[in-house]
């Protein structure tokens, strides 16, 4: 089974987001980078499927030259090949992003044969557009389901399950080739091994530089939501605080007087 995983480099934000002085971006000077959590799981899922069923795995990203780090992270846990669609660091909107990815997939499939399964994260952690996987599937004329938390590939089809709002599950059986967007929780991603990291460091990365295009949705600026910062009232320290906590729970109404 040949699997492609598409990922996005995003800043690893922690306790608080700080913006650049011009308010157009996150100040990343003191931040590391990672891929969106859902995508980490997509990478792990691809590696697991190929470990049990055989086949090949490829990771693709559209991003700046530094996104090579995220491709190597994926290769360190077992992805074989990597494709970097290198940008000049500008924001790409979901329409333009999907078009560039579709073009890269077509070019790759012409020489290497089709991907049976293309995996995305359900939504990117940063821009949260909820659509690139769906757009790519539509352009390629392949079935797509989103929000998937369990995946069972067969010979000619894949069964994909997701949770419903009521807490149950619903499943889809899709004929291959298919596109699936996954959510964190589908698996627990492994940590890369040291030999894995060393192997990944030496691997080739296929590169191309698609031309930036406007897709109709253009970021103007970013801002933090109106300050909700409060200062917690300290009601005690250590186990001696227990009576005060119980009193509080009674006052809030979650414990009978």
């Amino acid at each position, binding site marked *: 089974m040949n699997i492609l995983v598409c990922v996005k480099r995003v800043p690893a*934000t922690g306790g608080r987001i700080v913006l650049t002085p011009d308010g157009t971006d996150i100040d990343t000077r003191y931040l590391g980078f990672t891929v969106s959590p859902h995508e980490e799981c997509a990478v792990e899922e691809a590696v697991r499927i190929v470990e049990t069923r055989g086949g090949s795995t490829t990771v693709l990203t559209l991003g700046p030259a530094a996104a090579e780090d995220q491709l190597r992270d994926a290769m360190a846990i077992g992805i074989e090949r990597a494709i970097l669609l290198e940008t000049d660091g500008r924001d790409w909107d979901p329409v333009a992003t999907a078009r560039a990815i579709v073009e890269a997939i077509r070019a790759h499939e012409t020489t290497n044969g089709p991907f049976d399964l293309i995996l995305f994260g359900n939504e990117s952690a940063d821009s949260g557009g909820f659509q690139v996987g769906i757009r790519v599937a539509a352009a390629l004329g392949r079935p797509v389901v989103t929000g998937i938390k369990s995946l069972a590939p067969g010979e000619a089809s894949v069964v994909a399950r997701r949770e419903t709002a009521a807490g149950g599950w619903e499943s889809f059986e899709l004929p291959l080739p298919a596109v699936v967007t996954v959510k964190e929780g589908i698996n627990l991603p492994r940590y890369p091994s040291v030999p894995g990291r060393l192997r990944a460091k030496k691997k080739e990365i296929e590169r191309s530089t698609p031309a930036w295009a406007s897709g109709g949705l253009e970021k103007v600026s970013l801002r933090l939501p109106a300050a909700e910062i409060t200062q*917690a009232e300290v009601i005690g320290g250590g186990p001696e605080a227990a009576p005060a906590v119980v009193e509080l729970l009674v006052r809030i109404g979650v414990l009978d007087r």
Partner: protein
Amino acid sequence: MSGPVLAVVAVTDGVPERASVEALALARGVAGSTGGALGAVLFGDPGAMRGAVAALAGSGVSTAIAVEHDRLTPDHPDGWASAIAQVAESRGAAAVVGAGTERGNDLLARVAARLDVPLAANCLTVEPGEVWAISRQRWAGSLIEDCRLDARIKVLTVAPNTVAVGAPDGSPAPALETAAVTLTDADLAVHVTGREAPERGKISLTDAKVVVGGGRGVGSGEGFADLEELASLLGGAVGGSRVVTSAGWRPHADQIGQTGLRIAPDVYIACGISGAIQHIVGCKAAKHILAINTDPEAPIMGVADYAVIGDLHAVVPAISAEIRRRSSSA
């Protein structure tokens, strides 16, 4: 005169879904600005649409549109996307607006892909003009993006719980029209092929009045026994931060935050949780937050209402003991 603004309203048992009603409220404001009519495309079981029409009285909708196709069910996402795209095209719609729920974002993204226009997901405010000025959520709401949307038909979803729904006014129930659509086998290929009912008897994190959450400070899977005990005394549920589910201390289904669940209990007791924004977006809807943490400077202190400074493994059992002491002496 601008084309109509169409809101996609998901209907279950004749009742419009809450997030759809919010989307409809935003769509009404948009239609007011553009001068276009406000239409509602009813999404759901065809049998239940009559009741929904009555429920839309007072919401400013002039026309409710029921899609007609003998093979289309709510379990066909592409079929619905194709149907909504056809309705939008045939009526010359200026915009299609849906709920920013998981299913809403999935559906409207499919609609946008078919119309070859972008989806602006999880919008907060929309100002129509030559190019529309939109604000929308990024990072699950911890950041707001101001952006410009330039497209033939504007497709957007509305971030849930962000738009105020006014009281119904005197506008009459809309006229019900049916729209016949043409669907191909490909449109109907993706459909739900199996279902499993929710597990019975467990208090779900999203319904619980009390949630006890654990973070890195809990230290291990076994360390959650203290939290479980407190939660059971309070009739609540136990959840965790991403650190906890990534470490395998709790199943992922218990994760509260950007990539997990959004909870809104009466009280959230955050134990050993530092308070990364990804966690905060999942718990900030709690009415009260009590943080138990050794670090008085932790970011969680900036969102918590109350705090106990100390080691959770000493504090939490002491709270449980105090609750038991009270109930035995009562």
